[in-house]
């Protein structure tokens, strides 16, 4: 199978990655190749097999509810591209 140009653009949109014109064809080729490669799994009959999402047993890990320190504010914001020290600042989302 080969992905269409529209499919590549759709995936990129879902992944929030803008593609340059010359990247669209390159990724179309490469992503299609990778998908063809992994399709080999269809040879295997997995009827009735449970999926193994993790090797760790799915158990709740509980602890006592003891108050403790979390990351201080200045540490939280030290890598923010834009901040006023109390909030992360982002472009306006809500229209007037």
């Amino acid at each position: 199978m080969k992905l269409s140009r529209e499919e590549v653009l759709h995936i990129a949109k879902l992944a929030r990655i803008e593609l340059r014109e010359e990247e669209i064809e390159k990724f179309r080729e490469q992503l299609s190749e990778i998908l063809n490669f992994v399709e080999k799994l269809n040879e295997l009959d997995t009827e009735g097999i449970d999926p193994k999402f993790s090797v760790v047993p799915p158990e709740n890990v509980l602890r006592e509810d003891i108050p403790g320190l979390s990351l201080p504010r200045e540490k939280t914001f030290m890598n923010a591209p834009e901040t006023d020290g109390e909030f992360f600042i982002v472009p306006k989302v809500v229209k007037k």
Partner: protein
Amino acid sequence: MELVNKSLRELHTLIKRKELKPSELVEAVLKRIEETESKLNAYITVTDEKARRKAKIADEELTKLSEDEIPELFGIPLSIKDNINVENVRMTCASKILENFVSPYDATVIKRLREKGAIFVGKNNLDEFAMGSSTETSYFGPTKNPWDLERVPGGSSGGSAAAVSARSALASLGSDTGGSIRQPAAFCGVVGLKPTYGRVSRYGLTAFASSLDQIGPITKTVEDAAYLLNVISGQDSKDATSAKIPVPNFLEALNGEVKGLKAGLPKEYFVEGVDPEVKENVLKVAELLEKNGVSVEEVSLPNTKYAVETYYIIAPAEASSNLGRYDGVRYTYRAENYRDLIDMYCKTRAEGFGDEVKRRIMIGTYTLSAGYYDAYYLKAQKVRTLIYQGFQNAFEKVDFLITPVTPETAFKIGEKTDDPIKMYLSDIFTIAVNLAGLPGISVPCGFDSKGLPVGVQFIGRAFDEETILKVADFVEKELKLNTVPEL
């Protein structure tokens, strides 16, 4: 060179007896970094000033401490893969998107090393976000293999492996999602240990594929690996997947008592496509063990041949979710020109990520998207069950497995960069171990005719690092290889 060739235990003894000052040791490592970095590019950040300052403090403390008060890593400088947080040090993950990110806190492994007195000299190069097998996808340029500067050191922990090999690091911590500790260790002629999933806390390791990621040591010797594993292992309330299983003293396992152990040679790991010289060197290890009382039998891991395909569905799926956080809001890089919020996300990620990271995010996005989830992601997780069961069956008969680490020795820089699938296949013998959550160790076992190191991998039962450390240590001591490259 003399000091940097010593084992961690030897250095600890010298410091304990006050025959060696931490500052002398730190200077020796910094000098070695200075001598080799222009050739290797094994470090993204060298924290020389910080290390010198810490060493000076340690020098003073040392005069006040009695011998038995000195913890096992006191004054010993280590390097760390640049996807593990060291407080107030830049952490780039070899990506443009984190070029100026400074860690706000210590990873649990760093906290544990610090508590034992370790000093950090720098952050090692890697493939961008640990996605790669050659350290070529680093935004900061590739690391070179100390055995042949035209070749890759492997990846993704290529900077750590190259530095330990060239002795510009005494030891390092790497991370292993599909072979990223063991494969570069094999390519550079050093020891790389991927502990059992859950043995070591992942808190503070930049998440790539959370069900597969594990931190582990890259060292000159098996003993050094056990030495560090003792310090970094154990449950952590900050990582819910870290296991509530007692941590043994791994050094005690290194007693040479291999007689009576049962080894398995999985026939699927010795098939066509494996370099004959690699095969020969690995089979020699099996013979050596057999001569020393280990029974060796052929076993079968029938679904091994699906491991790479399974991995390249699961890992990108988890990565596409984990890397969603790099959106220009919290983590340093934000595109300059954009129309609105969505456009800011899309441009920030377009400018900040390299091609391999984009490919994996998009593959993961696709396989998790509506209509494709069952066909790809769920299917892969079912195959994972089969791979896991294959190992379980083998471990009913044997105590550990002997395999090559890689199908070939270190390849040339640029050789596989245009062909993602060719690159993916270089992890064919390490990936299944992550899918099954098992411990695996890579140890040098010989050289090919080009003079490049060959590694052997020992795979153990979950939480039985002791057996593979014991065997690896035995083999290392029997072979007595000279694994110091001329550089």
